[in-house]
C-alpha cells in the first residue's frame, strides 16, 4: 500500500480523490467522476485538443512534451486502427507517483484514456502496468469491469454513438519498457527493444496504427483539466508549465512522501519545508531532481522553481518528479556506481554505446570505489559517458551518461579521494548516519 502524506502547500488537483475510496466507481461518481468525459464528448476532437493546449499540460513521464500538441500529431484519417496507450511502467529510480494514482484513483486513468481516444478518434486503449505492480493490476481490472458494467466502456459509451474498449496489461520487469517504442514492442509480446524513429508512434505505433502514448500521471490529469477548465489549470503552474505534479521526495529527508505541488514550486522549499529538511542536523550534499537519470544539483543550485524550463536552465531536468535528497554522509562515488549498476542491468543491449558503455562505466566505478582506481580512471569515466550521449536509439544511453558526467564534474575531489588504494573515506560516516535514523 502506498502511504499518503500531506502538506499545507499542496494543491490537490490530481490527488484530490486520494484516500477517499475513489477506486469504488460509485464513490468516484460522487466525487465528480466521469463528468469530464461527458463534457469531452460534447466538445469533440477539436474542442478537446484546444482545451488541452490551453492547459499547458506537459508530459509527466520526463520529457515534458506538450500533451495537446502530441495528440494533434495523430493523423485524422488512418487505414489502421488508432490506439491510446498508458505508460504505467513506472521504473525510474526515485519515482513512485503512478502507484498512488492506480491505487487511489484508477477511474481517473480510464477517464483520461477515453478522452484521449475521443481526441484522436481511437476506439481502444491499453493500460500497461509494470509487472511489480500486480496488486494495482487487480485494482485496475476491477475498475475497468465496473466501468463496462455502467456502460462507460464498450459499445455506445455514455449513451453516445462512440465505442471504446480498455484493456489493462502487465509487464514483467524491465526499465527499458518505459521507453515508448520499447513499451509497444513489449505490449506486442516481444522483448522490449526500442524501435527506430521516424516513423513516430503518432503515425506508426502499436500494431502499426497511429498511437498516442502518455505517462499514467499525464492521462490521469486529463479529466481534471476538463473538470476545472484548461485555462484555470494552466494558471496553477508557471509559464508554459501548466498545473501541478506529483513530486516523490525520497532519500535523506525527514518527511519523504509523494506531494502534489504546483509546477514551479521552489526546490529548496520543497526539501526544507515540505520534506522537513535533512535528518538529524546533517547538511545537504546534493539533490537528484527528477529521477536517477537527471544530473545532480549542488546545494547552491537548488533555489529554483521546479518546472521543465527552470530545472533545464539549471543544467538538469525535471524528469519524472523523483526528488532524491542526499546528505553529507553519502559517498558520491558509491552513489554514481549504484546508479550505473542500474543502467548496466537495464540496458537492452541493442545499441553498442549503451551496452558497452554502461558495462565499462560500472567496472571502472567499481574499481575506483574499491580503492583500486588510477587517476586516469576519472577522466576515462567522463570520456566514456560523453561518448554515449546522443549515440543510441533510445534515451537510456543518455540517462546513464548525463548523471555520470555531473557526478564527475561536481564531485571530482571525492573520486580523487578514493584513488591509490584508499578505502572509501565516507563509509564510516554513512554507517553512523544510517544508525541514527
Amino acid at each position: 500500500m502506498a502511504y499518503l502524506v500531506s502538506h499545507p502547500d499542496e494543491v490537490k488537483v490530481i490527488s484530490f480523490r486520494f484516500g477517499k475510496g475513489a477506486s469504488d466507481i460509485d464513490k468516484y461518481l460522487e466525487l465528480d467522476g466521469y463528468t469530464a468525459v461527458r463534457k469531452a464528448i460534447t466538445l469533440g476532437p477539436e474542442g478537446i485538443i484546444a482545451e488541452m493546449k490551453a492547459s499547458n499540460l506537459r508530459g509527466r513521464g520526463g520529457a515534458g512534451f506538450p500533451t495537446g500538441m502530441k495528440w494533434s500529431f495523430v493523423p485524422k484519417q488512418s487505414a489502421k486502427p488508432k490506439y491510446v496507450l498508458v505508460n504505467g511502467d513506472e521504473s525510474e529510480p526515485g519515482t513512485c507517483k503512478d502507484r498512488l494514482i492506480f491505487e487511489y484513483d484508477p477511474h481517473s486513468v480510464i477517464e483520461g484514456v477515453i478522452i484521449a481516444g475521443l481526441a484522436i478518434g481511437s476506439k481502444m486503449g491499453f493500460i500497461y502496468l509494470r509487472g511489480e505492480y500486480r496488486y494495482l493490476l487487480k485494482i485496475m481490472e476491477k475498475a475497468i469491469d465496473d466501468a463496462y458494467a455502467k456502460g462507460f466502456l464498450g459499445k455506445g459509451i455514455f449513451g453516445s454513438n462512440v465505442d471504446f474498449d480498455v484493456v489493462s496489461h502487465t509487464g514483467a520487469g524491465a526499465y527499458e519498457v518505459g521507453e515508448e517504442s520499447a513499451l509497444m514492442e513489449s505490449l506486442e509480446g516481444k522483448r522490449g527493444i526500442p524501435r527506430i524513429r521516424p516513423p513516430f508512434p503518432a503515425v506508426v505505433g502499436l500494431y502499426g496504427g497511429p498511437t498516442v502514448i502518455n505517462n499514467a500521471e499525464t492521462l490521469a490529469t486529463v479529466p481534471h483539466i476538463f473538470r476545472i477548465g484548461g485555462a484555470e489549470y494552466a494558471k496553477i503552474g508557471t509559464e508554459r508549465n501548466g498545473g501541478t505534479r506529483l513530486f516523490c521526495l525520497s532519500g535523506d529527508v525527514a518527511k519523504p512522501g509523494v506531494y502534489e505541488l504546483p509546477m514551479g514550486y521552489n526546490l529548496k522549499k520543497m526539501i526544507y519545508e515540505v520534506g522537513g529538511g535533512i535528518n538529524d542536523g546533517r547538511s545537504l550534499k546534493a539533490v537528484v531532481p527528477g529521477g536517477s537519470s537527471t544530473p545532480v544539483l549542488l546545494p547552491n543550485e537548488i533555489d529554483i522553481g521546479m518546472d521543465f524550463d527552470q530545472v533545464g536552465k539549471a543544467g538538469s531536468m525535471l524528469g519524472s518528479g523523483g526528488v532524491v535528497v542526499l546528505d553529507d554522509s553519502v559517498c558520491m562515488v558509491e552513489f554514481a556506481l549504484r546508479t550505473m549498476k542500474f543502467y548496466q542491468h537495464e540496458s537492452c543491449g541493442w545499441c553498442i554505446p549503451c551496452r558497452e558503455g554502461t558495462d565499462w562505466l560500472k567496472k571502472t566505478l567499481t574499481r575506483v570505489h574499491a580503492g583500486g582506481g588510477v587517476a586516469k580512471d576519472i577522466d576515462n569515466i567522463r570520456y566514456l559517458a560523453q561518448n554515449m550521449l546522443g549515440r543510441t536509439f533510445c534515451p537510456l544511453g543518455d540517462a546513464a551518461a548525463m548523471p555520470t558526467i555531473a557526478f564527475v564534474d561536481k564531485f571530482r575531489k571525492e573520486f580523487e579521494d578514493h584513488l591509490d588504494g584508499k578505502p572509501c573515506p565516507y563509509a564510516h560516516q554513512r554507517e553512523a548516519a544510517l544508525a541514527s535514523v
Partner: protein
Amino acid sequence: MSTQINTIFSPALAARFDRLVTLYPLRRSALIPMLLYAQDEVGYLSDQVVSEVAARIGVTELDVRDVITYYSLMRTVPAGKYHVQVCTNISCMLRGGNELLAHCKKRLGIGNKETTPDKLFSLEEVECIGACSWAPAVQVNYDFHENLTAESMDQILDDYRSRT
C-alpha cells in the same frame, strides 16, 4: 484452443488464457501476462510451461524463450515459496537497503539468488520497485513491505514462515 491441449494448467488458469487472447488485436500480446500467470501457478517457467504457452499463443518455443530471457520477473528455475526481493537502488540505498539485504542474507542463511534448503524462502537483490518514498522496501512475491528496519523485516519473515 485449450480443449485440444493436454494442459498442465489448472482449469481456472486455462480459462484465463482463453479469455486473455481475445482481448488483443494480436494473439501474441497475451504472451507476457500468460507467462507470468503460469509462473505464479507452476512456480517457474519450466520446459512444459514454455511448450504449452508457445502452443496456446501460436509461436515457437524459441520465441517464448527469447521473451523470457529479457524480463527480470521471469525465471526458468524454481524460487522459494516466498521470494524476498530487496531493493538496493538509490532511494533504498540511502535509507539502508544494502544493510537490509545483508540482514536478510544472514537471517535466511542464503546469498543473493539462492533458496533455503526447505524451499520456503529465496532472496534476490532487485532494482527500483517503485517504493522510493517509503524506503527501504522489499517485495515478497507481489506484496510490498515498506519503511523497513531489521526488526520489522524479521517480523515479516516470521509471519511468512508461520503461514505454512
